[in-house]
């Protein structure tokens, strides 16, 4: 067991991660229950019925959904302003920096490796001119980066359309109905896409053995140096070259 641990997440980062997780789960669970139409019910009629019973009515359920959405948003706004330089900008920077050659190769290899193992992957990528080793990755690997991008755009779409639906009951007029109608549809799509990404994220983090140290670091804030070296070599080298810096 590696004894040397290196810092990966700050306490603020860990807090916002789990706060996010709790809010998203609640918003997903209540949001799906807000759809009660036999032609659209994602899970069937029993689900909205059961959840509405818990909240003692659909109206209360809607208010609860809004309430948590606003709390979620408010905490995020504070986090964004307070942590802009320390956490947010570095996070966005690493999440949106893509190096096509390295990253495409990583995506192909990682997917194959997850499905068929290293040995098979090495054989399969040979015709592409690749060897069987994983290209080095930075603080985030490209899978994490793409997931982060998807989640960021998904969240922006959810916030925008969610706000329009909320505004419908307080500010908008009959002339804006089309906007509200499309907001519902886009809200649904954004929720669907982010949920799909979250399924993958949760699998990779909590179930897949490969990323177990990353999962543990979401509680402890640190990862074993060896894990960092093999999974995030570029980041590891950076750390070795300088003193450990705080990144999101």
């Amino acid at each position, binding site marked *: 067991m590696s004894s040397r641990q290196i810092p990966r997440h700050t306490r603020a980062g860990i807090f916002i991660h789990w706060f996010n997780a709790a809010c998203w789960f609640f918003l997903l669970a209540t949001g799906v229950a807000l759809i009660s139409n036999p032609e659209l019910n994602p899970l069937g009629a029993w689900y909205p019925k059961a959840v509405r019973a818990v909240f003692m009515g659909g109206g209360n359920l809607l208010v609860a959904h809004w309430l948590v959405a606003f709390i979620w948003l408010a905490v995020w706004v504070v986090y964004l302003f307070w942590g802009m330089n320390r956490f947010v900008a570095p996070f966005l920077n690493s999440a949106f920096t893509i190096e096509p050659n390295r990253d495409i190769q990583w995506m192909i290899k990682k997917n194959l490796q997850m499905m068929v193992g290293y040995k098979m992957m090495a054989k399969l990528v040979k015709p592409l001119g690749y060897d069987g080793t994983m290209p080095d990755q930075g603080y985030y690997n490209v899978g994490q980066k793409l997931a982060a991008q998807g989640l960021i755009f998904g969240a922006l779409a959810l916030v925008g359309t969610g706000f329009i639906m909320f505004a*419908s009951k307080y500010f908008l007029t009959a002339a804006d109905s089309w906007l509200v109608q499309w907001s519902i549809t886009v809200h649904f799509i954004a929720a669907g896409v982010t949920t799909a990404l979250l399924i993958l994220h949760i699998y990779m983090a909590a*179930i897949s053995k490969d990323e177990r140290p990353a999962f543990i670091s979401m509680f402890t804030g640190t990862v074993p140096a060896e894990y960092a070296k093999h999974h995030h070599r570029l980041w590891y080298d950076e750390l070795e070259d300088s003193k450990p810096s705080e990144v999101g």
Partner: protein
Amino acid sequence: MMAKQLGMVIDADSCIDCKGCMAACKVANEVPGDNWRNWIKDGEMDWNAKGKRRMVFQPGNCMQCDKPTCVTACPTGATYKSKADGVVLIDRGLCIGCGQCIKACPYGARYRNDKLKVADKCDFCRSRREVGLEPACVSTCPTKARAFGDLNDPASPAGKLYAAQKDKAVQVVNAESNTDPNIYYLGAPGNKHWPVKAQMPSAFTFWKNVADPGVKVLMGLMGVGVLAMLGKQLVMKNDAPEEHHGEDGHE
């Protein structure tokens, strides 16, 4: 015994177009601005009437349909048909005022309430019924053109007429989207062809036909992918090359 279904049997011949029902409804239900819960369709000359020619009028309001397209279009279930009395109701707390139901009603019976910012329409004066009163339009009609009550109860004013005149009573519908209304007309109701074809909003059809299957496919693919990876993890031992093994035994 059949389920309770509140409805109206309207004797169009009795209507004198005084619009008392419209005024009474607006006051009783605090219907704002340009919105109306009920109407008298413009009179037309009944050239076929035996004896003296005269104008005919067609009073109406939400028809509390048996197959309400407004309910079909509502995503949240805020618009629903009450099991207790068959009236189509709106849960104002749950309604987000998206207006899909407004577009979907072939009779234009719904409006967006500018004050409440939700969909609104005739509910047979729910609040008055709760205290034992008749709908305001029924109480106020000087000629008693509107008979109201449980259509399945021969003792109610509407039920009595309905039972007696079933064959003669007509529904005013659009043939392409017959919602099976619970408002029946006796006499000569005039223009029967004003209801339009029910229109589902494009955002709704896109959701139903594209977004919903799309999201389901995406979830399915993700689920299959994750299961495949899990299966591989359970079946295959870690075959990572040596240089990829960490000190803790993981890659």
